[in-house]
């Protein structure tokens, strides 16, 4: 109801309020530009211009001293980029490690938060339950709180003698030292079946300066705790999107299929799921876009440690620029990340436009919850 008010398309096509001579049109022309001027100035100055400036800096060796736009700053061309991809060294190893970490992060966060959001939406949408409003708010509340404040809480929950380990202790499990544990989950799994030392074939080489063994480490224990936090904070937002979609599924359709003898699972699989397909796709792609941007949580909880296993490209670009004062490399990492995210966004807009033909006018409306 409330959402519909905003969504409702204009009922009357916009037409000029008055039909008079050029005077009024000229007037509106000036007024129009005056009205949008503040937004243009702010977005231009702090969004577009910065991107161009950073593009320049990514081609230089600027160290943060003075202005990057004087002749004194050494121009290095594409060197900052080639160091990330083709030259063996610390820069490439760090960058590829951050890419690996973020890929595992995306690979877990996106499917789990999507499934959890859908599950919660299905339960909250159940016609027979009372008090759903309360639970809807409870699930959504973590999404609106400060990422920094929540990270502080999760630092406490995942502390060595924290709540999570106490809970695990009740189940007879000896919890790890979450933020000191750099062991990869896949390595741990292999270890539990007796594979402790990597086969030589996997340690001798691999793409982009990391060994195959390193690529297949899985997320570290420390990264898993950040993954838990993010799933916990973003599922609520996506649940609301699923909920809006589920409420557009006609009750009659569900009832008809019940009459036809369909089981609950069959109804879900063949009636509900196809009807909410556009939303599912939206949630998946928004998750993909958002989870390449994880930064706040890493900054507060782990700063890339232990052993660089919680390093992400976003945090690495920040650290390279502001801690190591290598602004050129930092900016170059930003641009590679920018490219990844823009490609995902274009993919989303393309597929949503195809799939969502009748409602095409709103496929680009949603925004990404940060840090998801």
């Amino acid at each position, binding site marked *: 109801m409330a959402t519909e008010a905003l969504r409702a398309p204009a009922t009357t096509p916009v037409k000029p309020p008055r039909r008079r001579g050029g005077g009024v049109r000229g007037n509106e022309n000036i007024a129009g530009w005056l009205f949008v001027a503040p937004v243009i100035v702010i977005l231009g100055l702090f969004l577009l211009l910065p991107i161009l400036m950073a593009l320049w800096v990514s081609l230089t060796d600027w160290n943060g001293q003075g202005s990057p736009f004087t002749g004194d700053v050494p121009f290095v061309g594409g060197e900052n980029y080639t160091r990330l991809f083709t030259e063996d060294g610390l820069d490439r190893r760090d960058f590829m490690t951050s890419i690996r970490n973020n890929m595992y992060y995306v690979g877990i966060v996106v499917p789990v938060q999507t499934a959890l959001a859908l599950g919660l939406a299905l339960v909250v949408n159940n016609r027979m339950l009372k008090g759903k409003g309360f*639970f809807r708010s409870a699930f959504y509340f973590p999404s609106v709180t400060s990422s920094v404040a929540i990270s502080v809480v999760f630092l406490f929950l995942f502390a060595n003698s924290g709540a999570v380990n106490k809970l695990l202790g009740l189940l007879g499990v000896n919890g790890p030292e979450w933020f000191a544990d750099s062991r990869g989950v896949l390595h741990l799994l292999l270890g539990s079946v007796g594979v402790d030392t990597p086969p030589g074939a996997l340690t001798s080489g691999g793409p982009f300066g990391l060994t195959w063994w390193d690529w297949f480490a899985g997320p570290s224990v420390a990264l898993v705790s950040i993954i838990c936090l993010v799933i916990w904070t973003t599922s609520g937002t996506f649940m609301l999107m699923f909920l809006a979609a589920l409420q557009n599924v006609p009750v009659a359709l569900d009832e008809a299929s019940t009459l036809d003898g369909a089981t609950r699972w069959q109804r879900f699989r063949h009636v509900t799921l196809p009807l909410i397909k556009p939303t599912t796709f939206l949630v998946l792609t928004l998750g993909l876009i958002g989870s390449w941007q994880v930064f706040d949580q890493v900054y507060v909880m782990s700063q890339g440690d232990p052993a660089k296993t919680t390093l992400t490209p976003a945090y690495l670009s920040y650290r390279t620029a502001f801690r190591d004062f290598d602004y050129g490399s930092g900016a170059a990492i930003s641009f590679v990340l920018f490219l990844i995210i823009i490609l995902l966004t274009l993919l989303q807009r393309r597929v949503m436009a195809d799939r969502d033909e009748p409602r095409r006018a709103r496929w680009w409306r949603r925004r990404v919850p940060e840090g998801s």
Partner: protein
Amino acid sequence: MAVLTDRPAAPVARRADRGPRAQVNRILGYAVLIAFGLVFLYPFVIQLGNSFKTEPDAAANPLSPVPDPLTLAGFERIFAGTNFPLWLGNSLLVTVLVTLGRVFFDSLAGYALARLRFRGRAGLFAAIIAVMAVPGVVLLIPKFLVLKQIGLYDSYAGLVVPLLADAAGVFIMKQFFESVPVSVEEAARIDGAGVFRTFWSVVLPMARPALITLTILSFQGSWNEFPHSLVSVQNPDLFTLPRGLADLVSGSLGKGTQYPLKLGAALLATIPVAVLFVIFQRYFVRGANEGADKG
């Protein structure tokens, strides 16, 4: 949001609503709701309880929500031993200015894009849509460069000005203004009101729901804003709450200690948004489905 539960139940539905199977389903449903309700809310309960504990108590019984003994020592140290009051003041100032700016500038632009016919309007709108896709985290270094270059780095202006307008807000306002019938404005214009007068005293008062949504999104966004304050200031006197909190956790106090203090500070930083959330919940929900942008 349309709730379909209240329509008169069809016979089928009624049969499905009763009987032993439905009963089991209902109990299962509640079990799931309560279990996940705990997962989503209990961390806040733990935070609340532990912020009133002594340090040994918090370390020994992190799961218990009940402080034993109850102490205000953590909070006393927040106010006496950290710059919390300063961060709070800075956050309030920044949040109020950013919210006012966003509401005003976004409405102006949204109105112009929805109603005023000026050359370049379509192109401008396309540009704003494109800008919405630019991810915030890749702008960290770029923003720092610009602020430095134009001399706003390390100042209140640097904290506030770059956030004074946002593409998502312009978009929300444009959508809203398009749904308002034109006739009202026409009447005002025929009476001789200028463009700004018409906007300010006729159209804007009608836009209350959209304005509330935008106010809430802006307040929440700028109150929680972290990365921007990270790259726009370095002087501790200009730290906002999230920046101060992050400093508290990763800085001098180190990890693993002083949890009651840290949890209490995080709690205090969460309260304003929590209160807003309780009062204006449906606007938050609308924001999430329309143009939510936490960054």
